[in-house]
């Protein structure tokens, strides 16, 4: 009888621990991200303009000297349809994505495979595919409602080399280990791809939303 009482108390304690874990995962992690976003917002506002060249139809070419370090603020992204506004950081590693959505980088110092591409870095406003990854469930869940985006919805980018508006063209659900998104065929237009886990509260698949630059 004494053992059963002890075992019962143990199970109650473990259950309470599981509830604490769920609370931390769903809400506690968001406090960290909110704090980091405040710091990033200030860093972004204080950052100098990035050297770039203006090409035709609003397309730009960002100077190669722009090489932000992992976790640094790179641009701001707004998605009015899902009430999203956050500073995007450079890199898609665990530490970077805790701060906010992350821009998929080119492999160089600080960025190791498979969390980078051997292809040239593509920034918003440039020809090619700029990839942005974000949390769906934890750390503020910036892409919680990404599945609500429909073709025609707008994604606005505010960068230190210009402002760009993209229009959603399609959505795709792929296996979690698919790497096709990072190896696009040679693009002749500027697009961004937002990627996150799918469905909500699961990592069984990956959701990708493609959007094309509208001058």
């Amino acid at each position, binding site marked *: 009888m004494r053992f059963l009482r002890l075992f019962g*108390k*143990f199970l*109650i*304690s*473990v259950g*309470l*621990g*599981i509830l*604490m*874990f769920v609370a*931390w*995962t769903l809400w506690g992690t968001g406090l960290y991200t909110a704090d980091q976003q405040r710091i990033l917002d200030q860093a972004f506002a204080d950052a100098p303009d990035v050297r770039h060249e203006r090409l035709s139809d609003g397309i730009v070419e960002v100077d190669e000297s722009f090489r932000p370090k992992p976790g640094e603020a790179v641009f701001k992204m707004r998605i009015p349809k899902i009430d999203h506004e956050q500073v995007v950081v450079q890199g*898609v*590693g*665990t530490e970077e*994505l805790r701060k906010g959505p992350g821009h998929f980088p080119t492999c160089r110092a600080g960025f190791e495979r498979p*969390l980078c591409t051997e292809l040239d870095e593509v920034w918003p406003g440039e020809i090619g595919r700029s990839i942005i*990854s*974000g*949390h*769906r*469930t*934890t750390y503020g869940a910036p*892409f919680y409602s990404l599945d609500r985006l429909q073709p025609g919805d707008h994604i606005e980018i505010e960068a230190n080399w210009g402002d760009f508006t993209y229009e959603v063209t399609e959505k795709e659900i792929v296996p*979690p280990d698919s790497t096709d998104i990072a190896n696009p065929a040679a693009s002749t237009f500027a697009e961004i791809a937002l*990627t*996150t*886990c799918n469905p909500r509260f699961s*990592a069984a698949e990956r959701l990708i939303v493609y959007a094309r630059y509208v001058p």
Partner: protein
Amino acid sequence: MSKSNRSWWSRFGELLIWLAVSVGTALIMIALSERLLPANF
């Protein structure tokens, strides 16, 4: 039903032990989830 003669200090000590078990469980699960879940979960 027999009344326990345990002191309040003893009961409080036991509560702290079970609270430690709860916090320990939560910390283990957080550590595991950081390792097992994908970066953008």
